[in-house]
């Protein structure tokens, strides 16, 4: 959340324009706890940037299809290519035979889990790291597969 610099004042980074504002007082800024009293001098405080849903959608779509998508998405769903890929992976797996009713149930389970995870995309994420986001996405999918069963 913050980095320490070799200065006696603290700085706040504007979440809008990223400019730093210096905060300096005569006796410095310290923790108000009488036991702690740690000085905040030399620290820069910056609001953590959370992953937006649109960014997460682009990132997951790119990871699933292996195609880098730069254009702005039109709705808050994964790309058609990635939805197809995920559904195919979920239904076919390593090659599978289904009775009609089992296939219908599987389609329902797969679409339910993908829909629920995509609806939550970005909400819990605090990282822009692709591997981290993709890994969190797929562990949510796994959990939802059980919930949607």
């Amino acid at each position, binding site marked *: 959340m913050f980095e320490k610099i070799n200065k006696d004042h603290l700085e706040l980074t504007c979440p809008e324009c990223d400019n730093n504002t210096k905060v300096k007082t005569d006796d410095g800024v310290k923790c108000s706890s009488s036991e702690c009293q740690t000085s905040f001098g030399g620290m820069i405080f910056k609001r953590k940037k959370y992953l937006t849903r649109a960014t997460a959608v682009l990132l997951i779509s790119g*990871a*699933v*299809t*292996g*195609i880098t998508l730069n254009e702005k998405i039109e709705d808050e769903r994964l790309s058609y290519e990635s939805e*197809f*890929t*995920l559904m*195919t*992976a*979920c*239904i*076919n*797996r*390593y*090659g*599978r*035979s*289904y*009775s*009609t009713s*089992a*296939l219908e149930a*599987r389609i329902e389970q*797969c679409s339910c*889990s993908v829909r629920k995870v995509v609806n939550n995309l970005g909400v819990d994420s605090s990282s822009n790291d692709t591997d981290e986001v*993709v*890994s969190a996405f*797929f*562990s949510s*999918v*796994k959990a939802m*597969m*059980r919930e949607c*069963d």
Partner: protein
Amino acid sequence: MTTLKNGSASEIEIDDFRSALDEIGYSLVQFCELVAVTEGDEDLDQESKIIQNVKKSFNRKMKQATLNKYWAYIAELPGFERVDRVVLGNAKKYLTRTDYSNEIISAFDVD
């Protein structure tokens, strides 16, 4: 659709397959011959070994992958449309462009 944890097909799945053979009008012996002809490379000794192995595989634990392969064989037979069954190919073929194919497959690998 209860696959055993060790990758073996369950008894129910094997029974389903044998019921499908009945519906097509194929005996187990005819099916073994079909596999032998498909995999035997026109070698009579090889075909005879395959017939024995396929027969045996129905009496002991069969791998899920083997059963899937057998489904793919009978899906090509003319009478298969009478069977209430859909046979689908391996999804790995759709995942060649992504670096996350294992993660994708494993996320959905729950029964």
